């Protein structure tokens, strides 16, 4: 039997790539193998890199068509059809893993591939490619794996699924007699696959005879040691532990078979692997996630063994690659290209740093202090002294160790702000465990996604937290520790231990030395306002630098005390060595803070500092008349109000003075990845006046700012500078920067400049006074034919017009020639059905907006906002709506 002719045309495949090659297999039989080979027909030349792609079951080399077409010309991309699959020969007999590994070796030999080689594989192509990789260490320079497995992790549902498929009658019916298995695989993704791509995948499998190997593949999965392929798979699974080359794990976490469990298993076997989880993508991750193939190419192009410039330059025309950082050696901290240094696994540095002031220093320095360290003013007020807190942290740390929590382990902490949360966090830091902190504001679904993405090993939670973990199907292989008292329901939720019991458990456990400065400390999450929340990893040294930056910025002294009405900062007090009060409020709903509750919290610790989100400040201002005379006096001792988390209007800061007359209101600017970046006070804001954007003040100590100018289409040029009055993407460098995005290699790469600075995604400019102005988000820049236009100043100008409540500036049309459209909400509810503004309003808006010609003004009853913040305008949705209205569908109703 020989291979079948490939029925071109096939969407996305150049027939010129298609060729066959004859090999002699381990049985001495000659087999014809079909491959897609980007260098097919090329007579001479040596590829800079050969990318060897191996598909799984039931796909074929078609899976790699975009990789073949988008790869740089000096790379040879070879995607093989495994024997019996795709358009390779049908043998009529079962082919087992060990033989498939041999087959691949024979294929690369026949094709004259003599390195350097990077393997790229999917599904059961993974073990085959890894078997080849282990057999060819002299050629191997990199390994990319997508949704695959080398072993069955305990508790994985796949064995059951596979057993079900393998049961008599089912296997043959599903995989061979019908196209059920093939078609089912193509339907796993979040979007419906286009008909032409589906046809491409189905092309080699029209008949039962053509599909025999699909059934054989399923049969060859070893579920226990008695299986003929068990030894071969086990050799691969153990062998990869010794892989020295860079590894990328690109994963679709919605895969019903190769779930996160398999990703975590692989990551544990290859702790140096780079990881990118494409949230929402399923089994065919390279089909489901548009960025996956470009990311893989970028990753391959930065393999240390390649000459970076040549491969990068030829990658530049790739679509959807925001900016390809070149490989500069200037990085101040692990460069993304240095795969081994930027591991997604906990790293303990080999070179021990100097003795230093660690995060627990502030706590330790007051360990004999009987005064209050934490005061909770919730239902039943609770006061914890410095001495108690310090002792609890040490005892818990020992207890954690005794119960099996180790340095580097990730520990999800689902506890409301207060003494228990603070004690658990510092205890984790004490032993080098990594705290995974999810904000309840993400909602159940968002918290579930965030928790699963971080893959914590242990969980410490209040009863509600355990229930949530169960509801979102978070599986932790380590401890589930309950904060509170055991009840029937908490036992039902699988609590292994009670937090209070751990204190005794660790009595005889000796604590280790403090973690190294570059040990990971915490995984926190972005707001998730634009897409799924992203995990952000901080190391100890960055948190220490953040502590120091805040201390310097706000001249914090030990006799200062803080009211933390903004959950993330409730934990910070002990690090700053200042007492903290948590006011009586719902921490997930800042609007529930009242002026009396704030005053009581201030009084409880004699707080001179207040940290509250704008929504909380607004709620306090609005409840000011509920204050008693004594509470008013208490609030007079506040010297500093810090408000951040969303844009803080000047008027709100001004009104805050009615409640805290002696406070100097400040608003720091920053984001989950870097906070604070800059800071401005009320008086400085008044002084700054009106400008292009929102003035966010001067960089805080330790922060360096640059702006990467936008090109004519609105994209950053990749040349950050500190030039004044130039609009561009704001780039920041600081010792308190995040280490990286968590298991989002491609995102990290795109958000990092050549020399390791963080790209904030905000656009703005520096002024002659050294102040930073934020002009909007990078993706909200309107790209007109006269150049890029930023939205914030336009919106501010329009909102200053009488009768305008809200304004949003959006672009309509193709990038580079977008028309500026201003969408407004007016204060009078008109009854007209048309969304068009009157000529008078048009004239007013055009007079107010001098930057660019306003194409038109549309009126809506409200602007769409993101669900999480209820404040950030969803400009993408708004732009799509405006485009639809202005295309003239003729049936547009007012929204």
């Amino acid at each position, binding site marked *: 039997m020989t291979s079948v002719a490939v029925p071109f045309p096939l969407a996305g495949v150049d027939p010129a790539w298609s060729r066959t090659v004859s090999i002699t297999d381990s049985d001495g039989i000659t087999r014809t193998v079909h491959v897609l080979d980007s260098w097919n027909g090329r007579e001479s030349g040596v590829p800079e890199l050969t990318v060897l792609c191996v598909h799984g079951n039931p796909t074929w080399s078609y899976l790699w068509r975009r990789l073949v077409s988008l790869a740089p010309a000096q790379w040879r991309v070879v995607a093989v059809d495994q024997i019996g699959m795709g358009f390779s020969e049908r043998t009529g007999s079962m082919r087992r893993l060990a033989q498939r590994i041999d087959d691949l070796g024979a294929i690369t030999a026949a094709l004259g591939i003599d390195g350097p080689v990077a393997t790229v594989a999917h599904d059961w192509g993974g073990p085959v490619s890894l078997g080849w990789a282990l057999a060819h260490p002299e050629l191997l320079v990199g390994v990319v794996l997508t949704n695959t497995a080398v072993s069955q992790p305990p508790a994985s549902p796949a064995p059951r699924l596979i057993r079900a498929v393998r049961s008599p009658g089912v296997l043959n019916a599903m995989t061979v007699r019908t196209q059920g298995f093939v078609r089912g695989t193509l339907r796993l993704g979040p979007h419906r696959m286009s008909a032409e791509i589906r046809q491409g995948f189905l092309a080699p499998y029209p008949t039962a005879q053509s599909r025999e190997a699909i059934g054989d593949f399923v049969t060859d999965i070893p579920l226990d040691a008695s299986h003929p392929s068990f030894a071969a798979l086990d050799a691969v699974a153990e062998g990869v532990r010794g892989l020295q080359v860079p590894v990328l794990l690109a994963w679709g976490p919605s895969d019903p078979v190769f779930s996160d469990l398999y990703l975590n298993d692989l990551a544990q076997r290859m702790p140096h692997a780079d990881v990118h989880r494409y949230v929402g993508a399923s089994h065919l991750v390279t089909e489901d996630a548009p960025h996956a193939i470009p990311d893989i190419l970028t990753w391959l192009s930065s393999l240390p063994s390649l000459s970076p410039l040549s491969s990068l330059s030829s990658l530049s025309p790739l679509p959807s690659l925001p900016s390809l950082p070149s490989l500069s050696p200037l990085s101040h901290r692990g460069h993304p290209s240095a795969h081994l240094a930027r591991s997604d696994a906990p790293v303990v540095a080999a070179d021990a740093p100097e003795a230093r002031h660690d995060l627990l220093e502030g706590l330790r320095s007051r360990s004999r202090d009987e005064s209050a360290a934490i005061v909770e003013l919730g239902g039943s007020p609770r006061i914890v002294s410095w001495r108690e807190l310090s002792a609890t942290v040490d005892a818990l740390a020992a207890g954690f160790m005794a119960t099996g929590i180790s340095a580097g382990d990730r520990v999800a902490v689902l506890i409301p702000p207060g003494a228990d949360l603070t004690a658990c966090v510092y205890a984790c830091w004490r032993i080098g465990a990594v705290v995974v902190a999810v904000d309840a504001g993400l909602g159940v679904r968002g918290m579930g996604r965030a928790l699963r993405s971080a893959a914590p090993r242990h969980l410490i939670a209040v009863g509600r937290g355990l229930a949530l973990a169960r509801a979102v199907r978070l599986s932790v292989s380590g401890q589930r520790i309950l904060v509170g008292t055991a009840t029937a329901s908490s036992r039902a939720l699988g609590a292994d231990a009670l937090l209070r019991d751990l204190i005794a458990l660790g009595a005889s456990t000796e604590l280790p030395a403090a973690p190294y400065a570059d040990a990971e400390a915490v995984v926190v999450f972005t707001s998730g306002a634009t897409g799924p929340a992203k995990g952000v990893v901080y190391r100890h040294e960055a948190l220490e630098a953040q502590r120091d930056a805040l201390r310097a910025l706000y001249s914090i002294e030990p006799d200062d005390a803080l009211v933390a009405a903004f959950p993330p900062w409730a934990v910070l007090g002990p690090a700053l060595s200042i007492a903290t009060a948590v006011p009586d409020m719902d921490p997930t709903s800042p609007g529930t803070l009242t002026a009396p509750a704030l005053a009581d919290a201030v009084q409880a610790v004699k707080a001179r500092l207040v940290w509250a989100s704008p929504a909380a400040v607004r709620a306090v201002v609005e409840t000011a008349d509920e204050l008693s005379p004594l509470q008013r006096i208490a609030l007079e001792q506040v010297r500093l109000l810090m408000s951040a988390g969303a844009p803080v209007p000047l008027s709100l800061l001004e009104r805050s003075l009615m409640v805290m007359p002696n406070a100097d209101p400040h608003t720091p600017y920053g984001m989950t990845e870097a906070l604070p970046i800059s800071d401005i006070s009320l008086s400085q804001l008044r002084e700054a006046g009106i400008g292009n954007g929102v003035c966010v003040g001067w960089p805080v100590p330790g922060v360096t700012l640059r702006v990467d100018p936008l090109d004519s289409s609105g994209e950053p040029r990749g040349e950050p500078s500190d030039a004044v009055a130039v609009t561009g993407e704001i780039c920041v460098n600081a010792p308190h920067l995040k280490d990286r995005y968590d298991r989002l290699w491609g995102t990290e790469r795109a958000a990092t400049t050549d020399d390791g600075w963080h790209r904030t995604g905000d656009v703005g400019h520096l002024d002659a006074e050294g102040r930073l102005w934020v002009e909007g988000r990078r993706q909200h820049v309107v790209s007109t034919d006269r150049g890029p236009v930023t939205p914030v100043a336009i919106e501010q100008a329009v909102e200053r017009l009488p009768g305008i409540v809200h304004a949003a500036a959006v672009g309509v049309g193709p990038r580079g020639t977008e028309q500026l459209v201003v969408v407004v909400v007016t204060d009078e509810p008109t009854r007209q059905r048309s969304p*068009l503004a009157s000529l008078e309003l048009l004239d007013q808006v055009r007079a107010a907006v001098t930057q660019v010609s306003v194409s038109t003004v549309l009126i809506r009853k409200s602007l769409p906002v993101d669900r999480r913040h209820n404040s950030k305008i969803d400009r993408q949705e708004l732009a799509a709506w405006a*485009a639809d209205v202005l*295309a*003239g569908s003729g*049936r547009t109703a007012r929204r």
Partner: protein
Amino acid sequence: MGRRCVGGQRSNGAALMRVLVTGGTSMLGASVARILSERGDQVTLLQRSPSGSGLREILSDITDADAVSAAVANHHAVVHCAARVGVVGSAADFERTNVTGTRVLIEAMVRHGVERLVHVSSPSVAHSGAALVGVGAQPADPATARGHYSRTKAAAELLALASDVPAVVVIRPHLVWGPGDTQLIGRIVDRARAGRMALIGNGTALIDTTYIDNAADALVHALDRAPQLRGECLVVSNGEPRTVAELIERILRAAGISTRLRSVPASAARGAGAAAEKVWSATSRDDDPPMTRFLAEQLSTAHWFDQRRTRDLLEWQPQVTLTEGFERLAQWYAERA
């Protein structure tokens, strides 16, 4: 090259030309002729009836091969504005003026070795009815263009581009208007005065228009740049798309008319247009019907264009903004009130 010289130079040093402008009584033809003559070029007009412009003119039908040949002789360049516009008339009428006329002109140019042709076309030659949002000049296609006018202009444009004239530039100005315009402005104003003006849909479609001076200026730039741009085809507009509702309201305001615009669903407008075309066609009326399918589509779907390439290649920028244009229009009406 000495042949190009009329005996002098413009202030910028460029040689003066003898230019034949066809369709010299049209708003665009008259404007181009005026600009050229004001800068010192020697202009000849070619059309059927006297222009009253004081410029040298030859009165002839554009399809009269002998007359056209005589008119073309001894010129350096031609700006071809003559065309049959509107929707009234048979396919043969449009074919004759727009296609045959262009062929006759080109043959005369080739015969006399006239090397530059600025061929005035229309964005509708590449428009099959869908919304056009920020696009460039797409290829003319007589097979998909809508209506006799667009179809024949598409064929004429292809003729011009395929001709042996060495330096052909095709310019497609979009919805040219200005004081004294009878085609667009005049019709809207007349209908509003008669209380018969209605908005199609909500008038929310964003459309490009071109103020007359800018269109004429672009043609002059095309003439000067023709040797560098041979074979180019460019859409010209003010680059300030506005909603149909705003444009109509501004025109009416300039004309001193205050009226509330009724709204007609887009589908109904297309239906009415189709019906009107049938009636007009059956009764051989020689005025334009109040609504046509083409007009209904034009006024209910977005039409605006990417002007970056146009501006770069023509080395041209619109000098009169829409706001200034409407002020001039208001002044023009005020002077006639």
